């Protein structure tokens, strides 16, 4: 059963990587695309995104991935799109709550990075 409240931050690396992958897919509109909303991503695409440095560098196996997706669906962060090019694949996309939770987590990380930068733990970047 989906809940209306966001899970408390910080998120686990797996949950964060999954949210980021699905958000990236929605923004880029990567296939498959249904007639209405974006059709979502299947498990292996999410695994690949998570493994990439820009996706968090999180090495997910299928068990962790589907276990996390199951809990995220119960928490109302993701949903199955119901659209599939192969009945053996299940496609997932973010819910509104999932978007909100990702935004909160990104803001938290951004604040932490800004703090680390102001303390001199990270080099200052020039404005472009």
């Amino acid at each position: 059963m989906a809940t209306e409240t966001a899970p408390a931050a910080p998120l686990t690396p797996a949950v964060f990587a999954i949210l980021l992958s699905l958000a990236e897919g929605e923004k880029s509109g990567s296939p498959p695309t249904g007639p209405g909303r974006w059709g979502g991503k299947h498990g292996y695409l999410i695994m690949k995104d998570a493994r990439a440095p820009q996706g968090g560098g999180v090495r997910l196996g299928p068990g962790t991935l589907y276990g996390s997706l199951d809990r995220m669906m119960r928490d109302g962060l993701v949903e199955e799109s119901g659209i599939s090019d192969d009945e053996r694949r299940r496609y997932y996309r973010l819910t509104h709550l999932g978007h909100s939770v990702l935004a909160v987590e990104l803001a938290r990380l951004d604040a932490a990075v800004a703090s680390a930068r102001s303390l001199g733990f990270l080099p200052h970047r020039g404005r472009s």
Partner: protein
Amino acid sequence: MTSAPHSPFRLESLYACALRLYPRAFREAYCVAMRQTFRDAVHDSTLSRRAFIPLVLRDLITSLAKEHLAMLRDTFARPALIFNALVLAGFATILALALYAIPQQLLRRGADDPQVEMADNLTWQLEQGVAPTDAVPAGTVDLAHSLSPFLIAYDDQGNSLASQARLNGQTPTLPQSLLEDVRQRGQDRITWRPGEAIRFAAVIQRVNGAHPGFVLAGRSLREEGARQKAVRQMAAIAWAAMLALILVGSVAFGWYTRPKTA
């Protein structure tokens, strides 16, 4: 033709076998998708098999543990189930306390019975003017060792007039507050501890008449204490058995009413 140990088909077969280890609800929901994800990974030329196989092994161990724990939590940590078990455990505890307290009280009160009669008889004799040394039977009861009942006659100030009881060679004295209480109420039934580890069921009664005073009839509670210990052990065994039954029943009920979907 046999497949090589690391051939995609062989790996997928092994993985399909490993998927049987997941809880049924999780397996039914995700087995096909997980197998397809594994197949996609095995056929991905950009993914090194040397890196992927240890990843899958680690993932199997951690996710199996996690999903089984989640299944146990979903099955047994449901608030309704825990609430019912706690309520039943509460009833069992109250019942076990009653099983201990009721016989304990009956045993303790029953331990006063002979002394009530003895105190009544001695009081009647003293009130009829019989001398305390004549009214109190001859003989000595060593309170430290004997189980025999005994009688003591006291004057109105609590000084011993005649006594069968001896503790360390002396007749035990009664506290003044107790005597005042008996003076007002006529009789008191107490657990008397005149010495270390010695307990007596004592009946103290007021003597009226020309020579007012008090009589005490007592009897060791050593045997009664042993019976109380046996009652306590039986109540504890009954309590443990009831809790075990509630635990087994709750586990069985939780299992048969567990959520069927992941």
